């Protein structure tokens, strides 16, 4: 009889195979549900394919979705390398948007000056936003999942308050939004702005830092084996603080790109779950900074497909449910990838089941 045993490591090919199975299973479940609700699944699938990767607009939207996802995905990935979860990318995204919008709205000057200032202020805001959870984690061991998450709601309310209150658009009187920001990240291909290649470069840069620098090595060891890292005299607390602050800055940069590249103003609800979806991206990337890119691509495809589903009288929130289903099945698949068949145990004959005692007289 075949036996399966759990191994501490999961080989990449098994992970990929199980994930493919998980995606197929998710597609089947969604297809069956759609068919039950009386829709033509094959027509819908064709439509989705055509309007995502089959058209210029679809591809442009794909790149626009990927840009923030790569950054928030990287933000969650770097903390996961040290064994922590930053569930607060959504809030740091908002703070980045707030910082960028503040500079963009009130700092006159040429884009060459204003855009870098927006990026820097945005990242500082993101760092400030994650500072309290970081210090609480590093010095008091307070669970960072809850603290980072709670601040998301505060950040959402803060954005809403700024956009409807002190910073509201006094010219056109638009609701829940500030005026248009006078500078923008230049566009490079259709509506795709230069933030996209920058995000790709950042992901590659992070991968290089994690792989080839001693700092990255210490971060990885601190995450993989805290006991060994402490014994080797690695400054774990300093690394935890640095990684979490870096994470906040990355998520905030996503917010800045969104403000300066796509939305051109600050408005309530503009983070659009990009922070939370960054967690999904990080999970898909399995803690590899480079794999964030294909993971963000997959997530962007799901979001892009969601736009099509919306035009077919399906609520926008269906996408969130689909994401949840995919995440759940992939979590199961990732665990199953740890199991490998082993040779059946050889049953020794009963008489020699015990090792013979050495007789020492």
């Amino acid at each position, binding site marked *: 009889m075949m036996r399966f045993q759990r191994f501490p490591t999961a080989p990449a090919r098994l992970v990929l195979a199980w994930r493919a199975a998980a995606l197929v299973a998710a597609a089947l479940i969604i297809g069956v549900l759609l068919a039950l609700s009386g829709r033509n699944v094959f027509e819908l699938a064709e439509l989705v394919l055509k309007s995502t990767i089959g058209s210029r607009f679809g591809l442009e939207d794909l790149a626009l979705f990927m840009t923030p996802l790569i950054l928030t995905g990287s933000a969650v990935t770097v903390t996961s390398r040290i064994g922590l979860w930053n569930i607060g990318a959504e809030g740091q995204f908002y703070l980045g948007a707030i910082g960028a919008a503040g500079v963009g709205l009130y700092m006159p000057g040429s884009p060459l000056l204003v855009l870098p200032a927006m990026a820097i202020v945005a990242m500082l805001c993101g760092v400030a936003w994650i500072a*309290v959870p970081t210090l609480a984690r590093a010095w008091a061991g307070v669970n960072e999942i809850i603290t980072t998450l709670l601040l998301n709601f505060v950040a959402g309310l803060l954005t809403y308050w700024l956009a409807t209150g002190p910073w509201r658009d006094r010219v056109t009187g638009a609701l829940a939004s500030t005026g248009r920001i006078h500078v923008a990240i230049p566009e490079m291909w259709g509506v795709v702005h230069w933030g996209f290649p920058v995000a790709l470069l950042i992901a590659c840069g992070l991968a290089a830092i994690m792989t080839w620098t001693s700092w990255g090595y210490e971060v990885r060891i601190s995450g993989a084996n805290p006991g060994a890292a402490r014994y080797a005299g690695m400054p774990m607390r300093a690394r935890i603080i640095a990684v979490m602050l870096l994470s906040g800055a990355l998520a905030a940069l996503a917010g800045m790109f969104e403000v300066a590249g796509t939305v051109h103003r600050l408005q309530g609800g503009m983070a659009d779950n990009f922070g939370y979806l960054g967690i999904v991206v990080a999970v898909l990337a399995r803690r590899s900074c480079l794999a964030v890119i294909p993971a963000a691509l997959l997530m962007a495809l799901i979001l892009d497909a969601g736009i099509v589903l919306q035009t077919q009288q399906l609520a926008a*929130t269906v996408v969130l*449910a689909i994401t949840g289903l995919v995440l759940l099945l992939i979590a199961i698949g990732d665990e199953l990838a740890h199991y490998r068949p082993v040779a059946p145990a050889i049953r020794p004959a009963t008489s020699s089941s015990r090792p013979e005692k050495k007789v020492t007289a």
Partner: protein
Amino acid sequence: MIALLTGLLSTAVLAGGVLALAALGEVLAERVGVTDLGVEGLMSLGAATAIITVINVPDPWLGLLAAVAVGALGGAVFAFAAVIMRANQVLCGLAITFLGLGLSATIGHSVAGMPAPVTFAPTHVPVLASIPVIGPAFFAQNLLVVPIYLLLPAFFHWLLFHTRHGLNMRAVGENPAAADAAGIPVTAMRFWYVVLGAALAGGAGAYLSLAVIPSWSEGMVSGRGWIAVALVIFAGYRPFNAAGAGLLFGLITAIGFLGQARGWPIAAPVLNMLPYLGTLAFIILPVVLFKRMRRAMAAPAALGTPYYRSIR
């Protein structure tokens, strides 16, 4: 002054019940060693289910029952993935939250904004309701308040700390290998208490949409599930503390409402931040200020780690 205090406490009791009930459920799941981060989604599902049920059959108890059943079902999906398949608990919890938020908004789309045709109406408990301040707050509200703050915490406290079954539960959360060796069915214990906790989360959703805000709108749970998860830490994984923590945060919410009603010169979104900031302060400050409390209020030792019999 008395009237103000009574009003404040009444609002606090009403609003805090959601958190208290959900936190109570999470205490059960975490005591057996499973972090269920799906509470937010399960509450949302419960809230939507309850409203849809009462719009079709106008009976609040049926709405509550349906929400509890849907919560349990969602909890069973989570427990299948996280306990039986032993997949990462954080991921499964987030997945259930996404699923719950997405599904509830989808099924609730057609009833969004509709007021609930029936709600849990306030009922006076004889004698007790005439106690000043406390009476109107606890005994002249809807009928769910007394079970949430008193009966359920008392029952679960007795179960956890005064029965052999409770000892077994805690053993599963502290040291599943030892519990397994002692003949306690670790997986079954974890599975069923996660399901029960999720059922309570679903019930909390029904309480929200049938008693606190009697209607359905997308995003109406607005982080209450996450606050409930945080309160469990603050409550040191104890049933009565969880109910008390729910009440405390109901009070913070009530102060925010009072500020809006009285026209304090603070913008409404800023006042709405209070419960989140309050939760943050209450899980960070005690740990920083009272180092001795860390041990008494510590999490179950095996919290968040799946149990494999074959690997030590």
